């Protein structure tokens, strides 16, 4: 079975003085309906990996290697990644303001994506917006459609951002630290939402985070990155029972838990 997303020897370099190699020859694959988490500290290259796959690299960055989505090569000239973005791949950013325009109402933004990616007319896209907000369990959806992003709380904004990502019915969802800016209680809710949605719509998920606590409940497979290289990849259950690499073990040990007190 070919993977939905196949990353081979991906290397990302940034032109600076001295030049920086953010990602160093990474191999990774994500199968249909699979949830894969990439875990690493700031500066490990995990976000750059995501950006390279979706064509969001900064102007002075260069990606070499191969990234194939459903057989189609995303790297290389012609910015094919942009065409796939929003049509087969959805993106959820850390800060919802990365996906939400501050001066437009929530409903309008959702309707715009729905009609752009699926060619719906105005009425159909409005109904679709409502449906999407219901999917992400946003209470009082009718009211929310009329509001502006700044009128919502952080957790609600993130739900809207997820709804936006879902609008194009993606088969693969990229999530870049989707819960890092949120409170612990809201984090749990958003993670539960993501897990539920992936199951319900049969989406694959590639999630990037620095917090193994986030990942433990969500991932089928866990990949650990350090200084641009993939250090360990394993099935989640195996990984949590006992990571093989010392760096992975240190990441696991760093998660604050209530152990010893309960």
């Amino acid at each position, binding site marked *: 079975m070919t993977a939905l997303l196949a990353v081979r020897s991906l290397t990302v370099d940034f032109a600076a003085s001295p030049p920086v190699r953010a990602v160093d020859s990474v191999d990774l694959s994500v199968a249909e309906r699979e949830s894969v988490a990439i875990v690493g500290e700031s500066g490990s290259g995990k976000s750059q990996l995501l950006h390279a796959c979706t064509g969001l690299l900064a102007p002075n960055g260069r990606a070499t290697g191969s990234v194939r989505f459903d057989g189609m090569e995303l790297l290389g000239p012609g910015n094919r990644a942009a065409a796939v973005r929003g049509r087969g791949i959805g993106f959820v950013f850390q800060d919802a303001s990365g996906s939400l325009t501050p001066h437009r109402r929530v409903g309008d933004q959702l309707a715009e994506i729905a009609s752009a990616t699926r060619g719906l007319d105005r009425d159909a896209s409005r109904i679709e917006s409502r449906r999407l907000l219901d999917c992400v369990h946003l209470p009082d959806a009718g009211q929310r459609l009329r509001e502006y992003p700044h009128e919502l709380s952080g957790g609600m904004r993130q739900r809207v951002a997820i709804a936006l990502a879902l609008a194009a019915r993606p088969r693969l969802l990229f999530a870049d630290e989707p819960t890092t800016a949120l409170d612990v209680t809201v984090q749990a809710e958003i993670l539960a939402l993501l*897990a539920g949605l992936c199951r319900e719509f049969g989406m694959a998920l590639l999630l990037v985070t620095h917090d193994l606590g986030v990942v433990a409940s969500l991932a089928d497979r866990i990949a650990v990155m350090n200084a641009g290289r993939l250090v360990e990849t394993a099935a989640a259950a195996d990984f949590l029972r006992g990571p093989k690499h010392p760096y992975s073990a240190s990441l696991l040990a760093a998660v*604050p838990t*209530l152990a010893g007190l309960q």
Partner: protein
Amino acid sequence: MSLLELRGVTVRYRQPGDGARDLAAVDGVDFAIAEHEMLGLVGESGCGKTTLGRSILRLVPLAAGEVHWRGRRIDGLSQRAFRPLRRELQCVFQDPHACLDPRMTIAASVAEPLRALERGLAPVERARRARLRLEEVGIADELARRYPHQLSGGQLQRAVIARALIVDPGFVVCDEPVSALDVTIQGQIVELLGRIRVERRLASLFISHNLAVVARLCERVMVMYRGRIVETGTRRDIVSAPLHPYTRELLDAVPVIDVRARERLLRRAQRARPAAVDRAPAGGCAFAARCPHALPLCRAERPQLMKAESGRQVACHRAGEWPGGLPSSMAG
């Protein structure tokens, strides 16, 4: 006599365009911190915990209530009269990238409180003390000469701690000091704070939205929701036998790393789940809208913070009904 005492502290913000109705960010908070005690304050964003910290430091004015420091009332003082107290009351802020002037070197930022509060010091002596403090938190001389944008989050936060300590305060407000940092660095900073607190016998208010982090450092913990304290107790009590439904929710949200985590998450996903309602209900318990155990009484009448067994306090009408503390809804 306690070191710091708050009585009925209330802070209001004017809500723009809502009929100019005032929002009580902090609503009648009472507590006391003893010498050398580190008290934890947990709550979600918007619950008023940051505002509470800022009100102690005289960064926001009180709408009502009193703040007492070493038995002396300090909330009514003007900024000028308050200044000498700043040698005793310091702060470690949340975002190290934001609380350091980007145009000053680390060493200069750390030495700055000395410039303001100990005017007679010679520059050489100031620099020496800054160097000592930076050493204490593990920042090398080489790094101290650099600018904030050249250091990592963890290094910056160490510098922020050094700056808070340079005037030898008796009390430090730690406002979410690790929330903006990677998980791996969080542990280091928490350890550093713990060490410093023991070595210097500092009293402190440790504010965070993450109960696990607070429980690591603080013997006593307060839980805050929408401007009010809803539960207090030792960390052991809070974690093993929570009395307030919100505390239970906080506990359930702390990630547990084991192989059953996935099932628990999917079960949570299936539960009914609306995100919290924004408008604070008039009258009645503020948590009622979110509470799985809410009764009509809860929506009608606001529960007061009352004493429970063994020195704990809780604000909940149904507090006595679960003798061993509320059970987890994530059981399994």
